[in-house]
């Protein structure tokens, strides 16, 4: 009996490969147990038994794959956490660069006969940088729940950099692009991430 059953079980296990890998990992052992039990109950099973098995595998495997295709990829948004953290670290780094740049620009301004505008420019630059650093730290520690705050900080940072550009027209192109470009990039990132999350929640 054991020698005759083994090939049948091997065939059944081969059929199970049509199921999604996750489902197989969870239930292959039990499904094989049931197959063995049913064959024992039906005394080996003939063509009718195998037709039933094939029909069951075809129908249920198709349903499994359809479910898997419909399921959102990031049910808990966990894979997005890594991207959020990288963006947060980038925000902190850009903020630090902006602090450095503000002090360098302020120093250059003073060396060229600096005035109140230089001081205001440095102060606004440091404020813009602090907003970005705080937004980055909040996103890193609290993830998506800090997104609203990060959006406000990004808008504030861009607005401050525009103000600096007004009071300090000699502000470098690099500093301008970084000061306005990065907050816009952060806003876009938060918008696109939220859109994906909303559509996933609707699907679920």
């Amino acid at each position: 009996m054991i020698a005759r059953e083994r090939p049948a079980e091997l065939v059944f296990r081969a059929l199970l490969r049509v199921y999604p890998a996750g489902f197989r990992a969870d239930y292959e052992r039990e499904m094989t147990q049931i197959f063995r039990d049913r064959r024992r109950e039906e005394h080996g099973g003939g063509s009718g038994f195998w037709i039933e098995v094939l029909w069951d595998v075809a129908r249920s495997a198709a349903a499994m794959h359809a479910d898997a295709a419909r399921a959102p990829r990031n049910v808990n948004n966990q894979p997005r956490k890594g991207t959020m953290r990288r963006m947060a670290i980038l925000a902190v780094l850009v903020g630090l660069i902006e602090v450095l740049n503000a002090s360098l620009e302020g120093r250059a301004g003073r060396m060229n006969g600096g005035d109140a505008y230089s001081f205001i420019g440095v102060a606004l630059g440091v404020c813009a940088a602090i907003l970005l650093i705080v937004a980055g730290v909040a996103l890193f520690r609290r993830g998506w729940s800090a997104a609203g705050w990060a959006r406000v900080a990004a808008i504030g940072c861009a607005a401050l950099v525009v103000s600096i550009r007004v009071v300090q027209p000699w502000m470098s192109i690099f500093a301008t692009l970084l000061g306005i470009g990065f907050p816009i990039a952060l806003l876009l990132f938060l918008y696109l991430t939220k859109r994906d999350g909303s559509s996933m929640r609707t699907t679920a």
Partner: protein
Amino acid sequence: MSPATFQVLMALVDDERHGYSIMREATERSDGSVRLGPGTLYGTLKRLLESGLVEEGGERVDPAMGDERRRYYRITDLGMAVARAEARRLDRVVRAARRRKLIGPEPA
């Protein structure tokens, strides 16, 4: 609710069971009209587990089935409530069918 899902829940109402026992119970209750293959059964159990209508009851040996360890399943309170609601719905459908003489009167 699909017939297979309802049959699995009904099989678990009385007691916790392993997969083969659920399969046999569903076949016997339906007088052979419902035959759950392994794929259908475990696909249904997976969905029921994810929905919280069923939970795992650990692994142990069923003396009637040999010495292999088998995973047991049991219905949750939520599963019972859902099964009751579905049974009432089916009862209403059957009563309506009887009123329209689609099926015979209720047996005495």
